[in-house]
Structure formats: structure tokens, C-alpha cells
């Protein structure tokens, strides 16, 4: 199971890198989304995929899953949703103002507006 997860995470990171290196803003944003998903899966996997019951004490269950990675992922997912939505709105505004979604055309020194 861990091996499978590692491969999935690797593929996610690979796609994210590919997308983030492209010129279009939208592709870059999708890339960052994939990257953070890969990171979240990595936390889950690194915590150990034990396959036990929910971490609530009861008599008939002996193995519990580790709750901490799940708590961490939950926080990280919320943050990455927030940032991604902000980024989407910003990209739209930038497209409206600058009239381009090509990162190549957004280069240049600070002086030329």
C-alpha cells in the first residue's frame, strides 16, 4: 500500500512540476494544486498506513490509526484551498488588467508598468 501511495505521489509531483514550468497562469495554478495534493498524501503516507479503527477508545478494538497526520492534512487542505482560490481570483484580475495570461510577458523590470 505504501509503495502504491509513493508512486501516486511521485506522479502527482511530476505532473505538478511539468505544469508549473509552463507559461500560462492557469496551468501554473493547477500545478500548485497538484503539488499541494501530493504533499498532503505524503503526510498521510508518512504517518503510516496502519489500517486500524478510528482513534476512539473502546474495548473491542485493539489497533488504531494515527490521528495526527489526518489533523495535519485537514489544516493543510483548508489552507491550500484558501490560497488557491485567492490565486485564481488574482489571476483573473491580472488577466483583466494586463491583458495577458502569459508569464513570459509579465517579466521585465519594475520600472516599466
Amino acid at each position, binding site marked *: 500500500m505504501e509503495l502504491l501511495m509513493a508512486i501516486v505521489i511521485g506522479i502527482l509531483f511530476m505532473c505538478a512540476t511539468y505544469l508549473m514550468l509552463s507559461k500560462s497562469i492557469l496551468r501554473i495554478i493547477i500545478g500548485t494544486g497538484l503539488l499541494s495534493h501530493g504533499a498532503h498524501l505524503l503526510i498521510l503516507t508518512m504517518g503510516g498506513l496502519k489500517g486500524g479503527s478510528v482513534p476512539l477508545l473502546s474495548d473491542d478494538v485493539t489497533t488504531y490509526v494515527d490521528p495526527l497526520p489526518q489533523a495535519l492534512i485537514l489544516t493543510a487542505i483548508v489552507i491550500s484551498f484558501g490560497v488557491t482560490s485567492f*490565486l485564481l481570483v488574482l489571476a483573473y484580475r491580472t488577466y483583466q488588467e494586463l491583458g495577458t495570461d502569459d508569464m513570459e510577458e509579465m517579466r521585465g523590470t519594475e520600472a516599466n508598468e
Partner: protein
Amino acid sequence: MNNLTFMPVLWPLFTGILLIFFVKKIKLQRGISLFSSLFGIVISLYLVFSVHTQGILTLGVGSWDAPFGIVIVADMLSSLLVLTTNIIGLAILIYSFYSIGEERERHYYYPVFQFLLIGVNGAFLTGDLFNLFVFFEVMLMASYVLLVLGGTKVQLRESLKYIIVNVLSSSFFVIMVAYLYSVLGTLNMADISKRIAEVNQPGIISVIAIGFLIVFGLKGAIFPLFQWLPGSYYAPPIPVIALFGALLTKVGIYSIFRTYTLMFYHDQDFTHTFLAILAILTIIIGVIGAIAYWDVKKIIIYNIIIAVGVIIFGISIMNGQALSGSIIYIIHDMLIKAALFLLVGIMIKISGSDDLRDMGGLIKQYPALAWTFFIAAISLAGIPPFSGFAGKLLILQGAAEKGAYFGMAVVLISSLMVLYSVMKIFMNGFWGTPKADYALSNNTVNKMLVPAVLLVIISVLFGVGTESIYPFITQAADTLMNPDIYIKAVLKE
């Protein structure tokens, strides 16, 4: 258990929420923010003195004890930085009243300002690695809004790059937290330190240490990772740049302080040598930038990078003197960078341009501005008895003890270059013949000058009175040198 520990975070949160309700009433917003900042300083002063008398204060949130729950830790270093943050917050707030413009004030400038302070104070005070990430994100989210507020073309363009870089580094942060969790099974910094000491830092931990260095280095703008900084710090209005330059990069450096003195200190031959090399390269690159530009904002922005290099160099030396030097220098740099940005902002406002070649002769009309700038400039360069001197002296003494002579030479030469770069501003901006008839009245300038003068006075007092503050600094450095003090305080053993 002491609830005071968390007050520097809760207080701006409360203020920020309150301010959202009065977002259209600008006068009221200013009043509330001002009161809140003043009270914030009182809280953090009280925190500093409490830590001084009682030792490290901790708070287990929700009564969950470390290492199982979230823990808030105020040691001397973090409480001193919280105090500095609040002082700078007050000064920049006052400056914002006169310069940020009503349009931005009506669009949630003051609430977001408070949210930025939550993130910064929280990052200084948190005792576990994942909450460091969370507070980083709070701080970054506020900084995104401040950066883009106003929506000019250059702001939008630079915000986009800034956010993408930071999203990448946040993902890296999460990845590194995941690795560390899988190796050690804990996220509480004190507990991590204890467990690394038990296994004596094998190779994988050194890899993670470098990973964290990449994350914090991106935030703190060390050598290969600083490229986003000159562009992004150039775009927003002056008070926002001052806030970023004084606080945001320093949070990255603080995290390097924490991780490299508390956690990853067993394999110093590898990690700290690496840190020293990066620090020296950072200084060199910063110096090249600072002397190359004719743009006042650019010169000060590259001076941030130089200071980052000097502080990191002090950390990489890793003995008592160099660490206390770094602590003095980081506080000095926060104060003086904020002051310099505010002063440069006034110059830009007067002359209507940020190019030095369009300025000149400001000293005739605005002598107070000129002399404040002069004191700030020589203080930045580290001329005794001003505040940059004590920090640099201690760093150099520490380096000499360790035999890091090349680094010493770079730091010393960089001081000269810093002096040259700021004197360039002074000579071209304030001396010579006026390029135009400056219309801004002395009255307006003096109003904007007040917060900058306040910061410069504090920094001068800090420099002259280093002797009396020194007990606080050594207390902070002792905690960094002996992680056991921190671990015992947090884990209550």
C-alpha cells in the same frame, strides 16, 4: 501554564475582528488600531519582563500537555522579537495614517495589518513545527492582501509571482514536516530536539535540515532563493514595504535560529558549514545589488539581503558570542530597516521619483529629515556607538574564536559597502543643488517623520544602552546554546 503567553496573538486577532465591523469609519479605525498597538507594546513588554524573571513561559492550549497538544512557548528570543514587532507595528501604523490613502484604508487595510501581526507574533511564539506552518500561512495570506491592495498593474504582476513562490515553499514545508514526522513521530520542537539527540542526527535528519533551510531560506531570502524579493518588495506602497522588509524576512530567519540551534545542531560540520557558505554568498550578492542601483527603494531592499546574510553567518558560527551578536543584530535590523524605508518613502513623496538622479538638495528645505536619515544610515552601517555596531562586533568576535576569518573579512568589507550605498543616497539625495522646487510643506513632512524618528531614537538607545539590555540578550543566547533549558521548560521534566 500562563495565558499571558498567547496574548500577543489573541490581542491583534481581537482587534482585527473588531475593525472589520467599522471598516467604513476611517477615523474610528485609526483610533482603534492606535490604541491596540499601544496596548500590544504594553503586553509584550510585560511578557519580556515575565520571561526575564520567571524563565521560559509555556501554554498548553486546551490543557493538553506537550508533546501531545499544541504548545505556545515564550522564551527570551521570541519575546524580544515580539516586542520589536509591536514597536515597528506602531510606527508603521502611524506612518500609514498620513501616507496610505483613504481608498486603501476603506478596503480593509487596518484589519489586514492586524492579521499580519497575528501571523508574525504567532510564528515567534509557537512551540511546534506544524503550527509554525499555520502561522506562516496566516502571515502570508495577510501579506498577499497587503501586497495586492490597490490593484495597480505592477502590484498585480509582482503579487502573482510572490504568491506562486510562496505556495511552492509552503508545499515544501508540508513535505518536510511529513518526512520529519515519519522519522521521529513527533512535531513538538522540544520533543524533536530530544529525539534527534537520542539518535545523534543520522544522515536523513541532515537532509531534512537542509529541506527546512530551503523553506525558511525562501521566506528569509538567503542566497539562491532571494530572487522574488527585489521585485515583490518594490511594488506595494511604502508602509507595506516597511512592514514586509522589517518583519516577514525576519520570521524566516527566526525559524532558522530555532531549527538550527534547537533541533539540528549535532552535525555542525555539515549543516552549519553549509549555512555559513550560503550566508557569505548572500552578503556578497546583497552588496552587489545595493551598490549597483540608483533607485532608493532598491538600495534599501538589497540592504535587507545583506543583513540576512550577516545574521545567518552569526547563527552558523554557533557559539555564545556570535549568537548574542545575531540576536542584537536582528532586533537592530528590524528597527532600522523599518525606519529607513519610512524615510526613503518621505524622500520619494517629496521629489515624486524614486531615482536618486532626480533628487538633490533636500537638506536645505528639510534638515530634520536629512539628519534623521544620516543617523539611521550610519547606524545601519554599524558605526559605534549606534546599534549595528554591538551586534556586528559580537558576531566578529565569535567568528574569530571559531577561526572563520574569511567570513569575518566578508562581513567587515560588507559594512563598508553598506556605508557606501546609504551614503550614496545621502550625498545624491540631500546634498547638491535641488533638482526642482519641492512643494511639500515642512509641516506635512514632519508629521510623517514622527514614526521614523521614534524608531531611530529607539534604535540609538538600543545601541548606546546595549550594556543594560545585555542580560536579556545573554538569557536569549543561553537558551539557544543549551537546548536543554528549552526542552525542560516545555516538556516539564
